């Protein structure tokens, strides 16, 4: 399997007054063609920022993004336009990510117009084809977003992301605003599209049961850093980092007979502004030792299973 995207030492800091907010701090990963990387973590852990930095919707502070073997860390405007044909994003909130003054077909057609090279008739045919692909009936062609429900709106967002036939899509919590019955429809659609078109996804979410379902690999983020990464089955079967363990135990399971023991974490997520060196999970961790104040090294105890915790073997 060919490597599609490689991210090296990616950092994104925001200036907050005189201080630095470490939103994304030294993230590394490799994503193969047609695969899905799930990114999980609490709100504020930098998962959305990571997706946006990779797509250059935000400028990066440091590090490298390599797409199809080409360094696209600091693209020119022309390169950026070409890049966007291959990399797209589906936004979290189908209520605010669509222009309320554009009809369904206008929204989906816009990327085609910007790309150029197609006649009006071809563009309309392509738009209708895209609508059919994502399961939107043709009668909605001239509808406006406010006339549609959340599931259908999210389908518009997906159709628009697909318009330029990208190879890689960042899905930023695409189903978290939807009801479970509709959520399942959208997840199945994303899986079908991946099979048909060989798409690679970076699937950002806080819903762990969804991420297990859709991902090949899962990366767990805490305060801008990667604390653990492994294949989906491995991570759920054998979590190593104390944060991953707590996170997995906190998922409410719709089963009344199999009640698991919850690990209730103390306290709240600490501030990402000028974080001190050492493990950022320290204040909430029940296994804390003096070594935790040292910077944590990413270790690989099993092949392709990474963990950043100095005590993982003892707990």
């Amino acid at each position: 399997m060919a490597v599609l995207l490689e991210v090296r030492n990616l950092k994104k800091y925001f200036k907050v007054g005189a201080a630095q907010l470490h939103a994304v701090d030294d993230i590394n990963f490799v994503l193969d063609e047609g695969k899905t990387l799930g990114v999980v973590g609490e709100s504020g852990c930098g998962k959305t920022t990571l997706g946006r930095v990779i797509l250059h919707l935000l400028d990066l502070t440091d590090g490298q993004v390599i797409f199809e073997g080409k360094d696209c860390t600091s693209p020119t405007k022309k390169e950026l336009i070409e890049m966007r044909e291959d990399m797209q994003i589906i936004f979290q909130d189908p209520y605010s990510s669509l222009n309320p003054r554009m009809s369904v077909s206008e929204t989906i057609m816009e990327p085609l117009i910007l790309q150029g090279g197609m006649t009006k008739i071809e563009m309309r045919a392509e738009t209708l084809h895209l609508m059919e692909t994502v399961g939107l009936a043709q009668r909605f062609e001239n509808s406006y977003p406010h006339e549609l429900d959340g599931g259908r709106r999210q389908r518009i967002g997906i159709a628009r992301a697909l318009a330029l036939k990208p190879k890689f899509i960042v899905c930023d919590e695409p189903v978290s605003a939807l009801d479970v019955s509709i959520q399942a429809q959208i997840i199945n659609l994303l899986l079908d599209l991946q099979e048909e078109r060989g798409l690679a996804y970076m699937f950002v979410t806080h819903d762990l049961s969804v991420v297990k379902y859709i991902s090949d690999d899962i990366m767990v983020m805490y305060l801008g850093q990667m604390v653990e990464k492994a294949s989906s089955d491995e991570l759920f079967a054998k979590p190593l980092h104390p944060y991953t363990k707590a996170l997995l135990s906190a998922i409410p399971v719709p089963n009344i007979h199999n009640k698991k023991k919850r690990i209730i974490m103390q306290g709240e997520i600490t501030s990402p502004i000028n974080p001190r060196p050492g493990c950022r999970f320290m204040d909430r961790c029940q296994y804390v030792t003096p070594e935790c104040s040292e910077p944590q090294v990413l270790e690989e105890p099993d092949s392709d299973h990474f963990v950043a915790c100095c005590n993982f073997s003892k707990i």
Partner: protein
Amino acid sequence: MADNILEIRDLVVEYRTDDAVIHAVNGINLTVQKGETIGLVGETGAGKTTIARSILRILQTPPAKFCGGTIMFEGQDIMAMTEQQMRKIRGDKIAMIFQDPMTALNPIERVGYQIAEAIGLHNKVTRAEAEMKACDMLEMVGIPADRYKEFPHQFSGGMKQRVVIAMALACNPILLLADEPTTALDVTIQAQVLEMMQNLKETLGTSVVMITHDLGVVADICNTVAVVYAGEIVERGTVEHIFDYPSHPYTIGLFNSLPKLDSTEARLKPITGLMPDPTNLPLGCKFYERCPEATDKCAEAPPEVTEVSPGHQVKCLLKGGSV
């Protein structure tokens, strides 16, 4: 029954706009016993929040209109009470936790004061006593009392939700209406809040109506479950009934559409289609259009409620319900 603290009979609520009538709640029957936690489960727009707001009579009328039914709380008819009597009950005997902690607090009042205000309104206490009690409530929900004088924006989402819970519990309510209290929170914080609510329920003996769309949360803290669809309760029973023997096709569909942590299946099984338009509800079963088991008879008239086993009621023609 004597220990029914809340009894809702045939409640019908509509929203009227200039050009349409939205049938939000269509004949709901619900009883809540002392110490019971009942989960109201259903999709967005199913009418769950409208039910809760009807109990407190805090729906804006108009556009909302009560078209029928009774709500009895401790043997008294809530619909017949004067506004003054209602005010005494709200926040005292019946309290509500609102869905969004970011908007449920007053941004320009100190959080401690907001809790003390509720205590001062319903109890004959001095200001200092109310403040003391408010500090106790903060401690109880795990917030240090020295943050009494802080403002909501200085708190994180999870802490704000805990302030809202502290406020709701400040007067030891008999009935707590929790409208998606953890939906806006992260799973780890959700686990903390649910654990706390569970403890409080055990120590104070409060009955809870838990509105949620998360069946995992229901499995965690509810005793009984009512599944709401298009303004009707389509299935009601204990958690064991609903989770082990779900009977209504909609309930079964809900369970099937959840991604399961232990499943290896390649695709989820969503419920096809959408909820019917509440301005134009079908004549027969409201789930008819989306139901995989529907027969022609289902479209003709609404099904009656039948009891499939003691305490387990289903509103479906195919499960023995007659037309």
